[in-house]
């Protein structure tokens, strides 16, 4: 197993603890306002200091990471499922159905993500649910396209012919040969997209279209901190570092996962 | 005809240094080529025949350790500076490969590719280069109106002809052909081999051909070198070889090719990662004796033949 893979797994495990066991880690309520201790630096009581309203930055960061990662997980999983259903239907049925579904996909591919999200926020109002919806609408088509491509390639592989010749029915070849050849590229792709989606959420929240205060969110926190940049730099340094950490850990895992799943590269890694 | 030795390879040792150990792909190989001679190296996959050919033009990966002397026109090219060597490669030694499409630029018209190769080696005007390229096209029997074709518009045989034309662009003295016809149809193979013989006659150059196909060897070779597990087991003139090969491996190989439905060589080709105490062919050899297990065979020169076997008695 590669070194990168181990590093990636450890980083993701650490992240998972922050995301799913946040309330247990955070020492304070993230929304507990205490104006008497506002804009404090690192102290023993508040290990990452406090923000402009005297809230504990560490607790807020723990909750904020949870919000961002959870939203991106939902976006990625939901669009992956929609994309998988759409793409595999198109590829398996082929012909006119394929043609029709592909045109729908083309339409969705043409949506400009940022502008569309801004429009959704404008119409439905900015909220966590609405950006999740907007991001799903703009991203599922990419998965559909990818799944379709993978299925079409896998369907033409001679090992499918070989299995058919041995008496396998379509169901067997799809389950045993086609789908495994789709799942692996799809899941590495999804890992890559988690980081990507997370950046989008952070960006949208930063410009005020995403998660609304007082719910802690990394992008929103950086946005709030910009007025205190010179007096309290820890307010944007810590969230910034955390964003880098999350994105980096997903990317490193995605890379090594691809190597790990390919038996050809796997045996080289073992050398 | 000038029968001087064009290429002389002596005690060529090639080792690949890998993370899991050294791989010996060539052990003490000696052979030489005269002008106008076709020398065929024949052997099964993984015997190191392509590596030996690539080492002559320094196309081996970085982890290859080359030891020994390679004399080309009397100059030891194994120890030349890269800059000096570049003048020989392409201009005096040209190479053609099994897959033409991997060696010709897919987005450049074939005529231009031949002309560019010429211009890269000799300073001349574009017009002059084009004339040369047209001449080469004619030599490899491609219609002149193909000058402006792209490689994908040509069939496999024609692509192979283009690669030969590019190789010929600078009138090389030595042509290295690595499995030039393996992926072609029999009818096309027949014509390409004929073409190679014709240009050899015309330029009085030497051809070093790498192949695993005994029939191609029979058709082309003047001299044959049989390789097995990094060792040159036998070198002999074509007629003498096909009458009676001396090395047990060469004998078995010829038997298998003659009658594949009734004859096999037991065992499998050895892994070059292992180092052999004795003769590498010993485990599969039906004439092996005790001494074969412990002693490495050395070249026995018998007139024009060289055999690397402990059980062959020099006469």
């Amino acid at each position, binding site marked *: 197993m590669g070194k990168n893979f181990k590093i990636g797994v450890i980083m993701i495990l650490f992240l998972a603890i922050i995301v799913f066991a946040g309330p247990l880690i955070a020492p304070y309520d993230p929304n507990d306002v205490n104006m008497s201790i506002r804009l404090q630096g690192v102290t023993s009581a508040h290990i990452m200091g406090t923000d402009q309203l005297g809230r504990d930055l560490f607790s807020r960061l723990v909750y904020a990471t949870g919000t961002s990662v959870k939203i991106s997980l939902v976006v990625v999983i939901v669009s992956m499922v929609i994309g998988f259903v759409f793409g595999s239907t198109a590829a398996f049925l082929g012909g006119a159905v394929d043609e029709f579904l592909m045109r729908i996909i083309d339409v969705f591919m043409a949506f400009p993500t940022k502008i569309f999200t801004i429009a959704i926020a404008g119409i439905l109002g900015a909220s966590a649910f609405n950006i999740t919806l907007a991001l799903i609408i703009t991203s599922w088509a990419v998965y559909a396209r990818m799944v379709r491509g993978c299925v079409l390639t896998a369907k033409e*592989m*001679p*090992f499918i*012919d*070989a*299995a*058919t*010749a*041995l*008496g*396998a*029915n379509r169901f*067997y070849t799809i389950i045993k040969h086609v789908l*495994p*050849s789709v799942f692996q590229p799809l899941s590495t792709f999804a890992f890559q997209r988690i980081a990507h989606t997370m950046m989008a959420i952070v960006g949208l929240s930063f410009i005020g279209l995403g998660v609304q205060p007082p719910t802690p969110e990394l992008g929103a926190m950086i946005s709030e901190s910009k007025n205190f940049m010179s007096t309290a730099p820890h307010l944007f340094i810590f969230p910034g570092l955390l964003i880098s950490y999350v994105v980096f850990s997903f990317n490193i895992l995605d890379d090594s996962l691809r190597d790990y799943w390919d*038996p*050809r590269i796997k*045996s080289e890694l073992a050398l | 005809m000038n029968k001087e030795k064009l290429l002389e390879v002596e005690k060529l040792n090639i080792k690949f240094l890998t993370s899991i150990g050294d791989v010996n792909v060539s052990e003490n190989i000696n052979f030489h080529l005269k002008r106008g001679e076709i020398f065929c190296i024949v052997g*099964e*996959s993984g015997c190191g025949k392509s590596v030996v050919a690539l080492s002559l033009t320094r196309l081996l990966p970085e982890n290859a350790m080359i030891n020994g002397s390679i004399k080309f026109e009397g100059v030891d090219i194994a120890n030349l500076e890269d800059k000096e060597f570049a003048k020989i490669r392409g201009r005096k030694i040209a190479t053609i490969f099994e897959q033409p499409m991997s060696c010709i630029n897919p987005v450049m018209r074939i005529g231009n590719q031949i002309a560019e190769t010429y211009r890269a080696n000799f300073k001349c005007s574009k017009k002059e280069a084009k004339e040369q390229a047209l001449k080469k096209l004619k030599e490899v029997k491609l219609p002149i109106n193909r000058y402006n074709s792209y490689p994908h518009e040509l*069939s*496999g*045989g*024609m692509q192979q002809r283009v690669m030969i034309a590019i190789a010929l662009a600078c009138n090389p003295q030595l042509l290295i052909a690595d499995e030039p016809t393996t992926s072609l*149809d*029999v*009818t*096309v*193979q*027949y*014509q390409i*081999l*004929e073409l190679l*013989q*014709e240009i050899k*006659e015309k330029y009085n150059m030497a051809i070093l051909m790498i192949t*695993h*196909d*005994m*029939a*191609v060897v*029979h*058709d082309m070779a003047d001299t044959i070198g049989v390789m097995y597990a990094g060792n040159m087991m036998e070198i002999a003139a*074509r007629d003498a070889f*096909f009458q009676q090969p001396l090395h047990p491996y060469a004998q*078995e*190989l*010829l038997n*298998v*090719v*003659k*009658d*594949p*439905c*009734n*004859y*096999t*060589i037991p065992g*499998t*080709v050895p892994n070059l990662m292992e180092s052999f105490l004795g003769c590498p062919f010993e485990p599969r050899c039906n004439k092996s004796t005790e001494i074969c297990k412990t002693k490495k065979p050395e070249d026995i020169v018998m007139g024009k033949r060289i055999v690397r076997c402990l059980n062959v008695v020099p006469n």
Partner: protein
Amino acid sequence: MSCLIEAVNLTKVFKDKHFSVFNKKEITAVDNVSLTVNSSESVGIVGESGCGKSMLGKMLVGLTLPTKGSVCYNGREISKLTFNEMKKLRPRLQPIFQDADSTLNPKFTVKKLLEEPFVINKIPKDEANQRIDELLNYVNLGKEFYNRYPHEISGGQRQRLGLARALSLKPDFIVADEPAASLDSSVQAQILQLLNQMKSNNGLGLVYVSHNLRIVSMMTQRVNVMYLGSFVETGDTKDVFENPIHPYTKMLIGSVLTIDGEKRKLGTKKVFGEPPDPKNRATGCAFHPRCDQCTQICKEERPELKKVGEKNRFVACHNI
């Protein structure tokens, strides 16, 4: 007469995808081909690349359905069988592909690949294991390969693994499509001998598809020479090779490089032109642009297979 496989007037037509929606061009890969194979008999199909020989092989084992014509196995037409009947029949008809590597799923281990035929056909584990042991013995592969992936074993071993899979369900008919083309002579010999053994011991019917005429001449009893989708000459292998009649057969046999006898002399040219492109079929006799005996009628009219002499010899040529 009971034929194992009887193919009548097989035709396969493709739509060329590279042409636009408005200009759909059809390519006839296999054109009106008939063929019979008996038990314990091996029949060769030879021709240059692109002549449709692989497609014909696929139709014979029922992997592709013919556009026209029929394939009968023991008198039953396989294109008319229901799905379940066909499923039962599949193991009887096996292809061996040229490119063994791509017929082995790279994500399966050798063990899983060997078990697959038994899993698909729901054969109990203990019976399967016993059969796998026999097979491994038969194709000379050791158990040490069990947990390796296909790319971790050599080309010859992969080809033998493919063979073991094809033989695992005890077929009576095999189409071997260049089964040894990319292999070394000594490995090639092992594969050929295995096929011959199967043929004589188990009464296997074999169709051997290849462009290597030397091996076809040794492996088969009857041979069909194919050019651009149709047979141009068929007959007993010995007769065809000793006395080729069709100009294309003569050319093919002339291009075979021997390993005994004299060296070829330059200038005695017997071979002309390149393999044809199925997209641009010549009118009349498809071979006429390369033929040195071409006359006016060859350019206009398509020759039919005609019986020549006493034996089962058929030739499609105007000039005989």
